[in-house]
């Protein structure tokens, strides 16, 4: 099961290798800058636009329904089927989607980190039990769990958040476990234990700081995946419920008017693309920075292949 882990095998960052790397002036490749610009543009729009006086995501102007972008000066990105300002809805949807996603990722990483550290540091039966639990969760497709629960208690945004928070921690737990497993026998962890420090103190002082760096890297590259996931659920009606907008929900509302007003689904689609692609470009830098070995290997293998 573990053979095809999507998560790159992140080795614990020994302080010795990290410092000289940081001292060098880092050369930031163009792709990463483009990624950061895409990301910042969406975040700025989502959180900046609501500060402007034009922000009004709920008022309906039925006479202006389905105005195309650029036609009405008051509604630069057009209006939806109820005449609500599309730019405002898009910005609010951004705040809603990003808020939900960040909340889920934070809960997942903290939960996964705690479970992984306990599992890796204590080992033994607890380790077997927790990792068994993780395997069970991996075998269950999140969407089917959500469909089953939504059929029973009714779909709601809290249900979606709850299901994702409860099931999506496995990746974090695995990395946290492998890192703390590797640290457990190291001298700087063993020494305070021998001097009488409690297990809890040792974990907090020596394991948590090392693991949390990895968790942060994982979290950044995970945000894109969670955006795609929650947007899909919103699109299916299993997440955010109208009249509150979210990117996925806006696309689903726009789908009904795909012939008359294609911009209603295209605009939120572009926004999702910008964030996810931007995050992908930015997080590639993180993962390659944290795992130095990955930087060298592709090039050498390619050269070998080319010679043949």
């Amino acid at each position: 099961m573990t053979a095809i882990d999507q998560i790159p095998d992140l080795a614990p960052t020994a302080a010795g290798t990290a410092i000289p790397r940081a001292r060098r002036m880092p050369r930031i490749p163009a792709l990463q800058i483009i990624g950061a610009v895409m990301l910042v543009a969406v975040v700025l729009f989502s959180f900046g636009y609501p500060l402007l006086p034009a922000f009004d995501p709920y008022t309906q102007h039925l006479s202006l329904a389905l105005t195309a972008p650029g036609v009405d000066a008051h509604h630069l990105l057009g209006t939806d089927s109820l005449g609500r300002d599309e730019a405002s809805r898009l910005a609010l949807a951004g705040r809603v989607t990003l808020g939900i996603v960040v909340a889920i990722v934070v809960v997942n990483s903290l939960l996964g980190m705690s479970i992984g550290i306990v599992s890796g540091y204590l080992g033994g039966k607890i380790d077997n039990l927790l990792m068994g639990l993780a395997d069970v969760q991996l075998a269950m497709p999140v969407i089917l769990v959500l469909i089953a629960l939504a059929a029973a208690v009714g779909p709601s945004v809290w249900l979606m958040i709850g299901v994702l928070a409860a099931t999506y921690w496995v990746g974090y737990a695995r990395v946290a476990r492998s890192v703390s497993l590797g640290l457990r026998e190291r001298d700087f962890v063993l020494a305070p234990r021998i001097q009488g420090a409690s297990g809890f103190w040792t974990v907090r002082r020596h394991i948590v700081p090392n693991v949390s760096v990895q968790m942060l890297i994982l979290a950044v590259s995970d945000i894109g995946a969670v955006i795609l996931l929650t947007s899909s659920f919103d699109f299916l009606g299993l997440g955010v419920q109208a009249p509150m907008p979210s990117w996925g929900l806006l696309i689903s509302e726009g789908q009904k008017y795909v012939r008359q007003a294609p911009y209603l689904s295209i605009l939120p689609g572009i926004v999702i693309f910008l964030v996810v692609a931007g995050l992908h470009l930015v997080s590639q830098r993180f993962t390659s920075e944290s795992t130095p070995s990955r930087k060298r290997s592709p090039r050498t293998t390619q050269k070998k292949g080319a010679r043949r």
Partner: protein
Amino acid sequence: MTRYLSRRLVQALATIFAVVTVAFAFGRLSGSPAALLLTENAPKSQIVALNHRLGFDKPLWLQYVDYLGGLLHGDFGQSYRQVGVSSMSLVLERLPASLLLGAVGLTAGILLAMVAGLVIQLTGSRGLRTTALGIGAVRQAIPDFFFGLLLVLIFSVTLGILPSLGNRGITSVIMPALTIATGQFILYMRLIDNSLTEQSSMDYARTAYARGDSRFRVVLGELLPNAFLPVMTVAGISLGGFLGGLVIVENVFAWPGMGQLMLSAVYSRDFPVVQSGLIVVAGLFIVANFAVDLCYALIDPRVRLR
């Protein structure tokens, strides 16, 4: 072999039992399903009557035993909404459409990835690899439901050459299958490319080259069978996520499959249909993983089924 088969059978039954139990527990979470099925201001007597008809007035453990007993007789419970219709027959009616779409989409995706991987390996072109990976990464940043919608915009709305909704003959399968195939493409292309590169530095590959075999022959005859092993493993493991993606694609294109049925059952609170759907999905999961194991044993002589 018999020992292997009996062990797999026990595992399969345990999985089904776990799914059935979890689904049952979920179904009773809401407390009084009858109240949800009726209109908001339904009189109390009506709720009580419906509770009685559906057996919700019995103690929970008895409901569970009744349900398990029913399963043994092939009774998967009746739909709440279509009275008298077995929920399982509703699901099975939709199963072929889902299987068709899933099979066409996955096969197309893997074939596409294989062709790309082989061409890259045969030409040794770095630019081609970068292009394929780039296209794959761009596709990965577009959610399936939006990609499907873009296809509809281009091929149905603008060009008017493909039907946008439902299942109206062979052309209907093109866009949903394309959505699935392009989504799967990057996963398998990366995998095939990596394992082909890895295999090409193995001793047996060098030996074949030393024999004077052409590059074409070595890559296709020697490397590809070995590179295909991880593809099967990943296909088996990622089946869960794949079925989840199928639910989404079916709903974008109103494809009359299981996923669409289960989602509409969510909206109408028809829990037995969802329950039967979950059992069928679990069954698919078991069959697919069994098939992967068998294929493994067929392709790789080192693997013995025990």
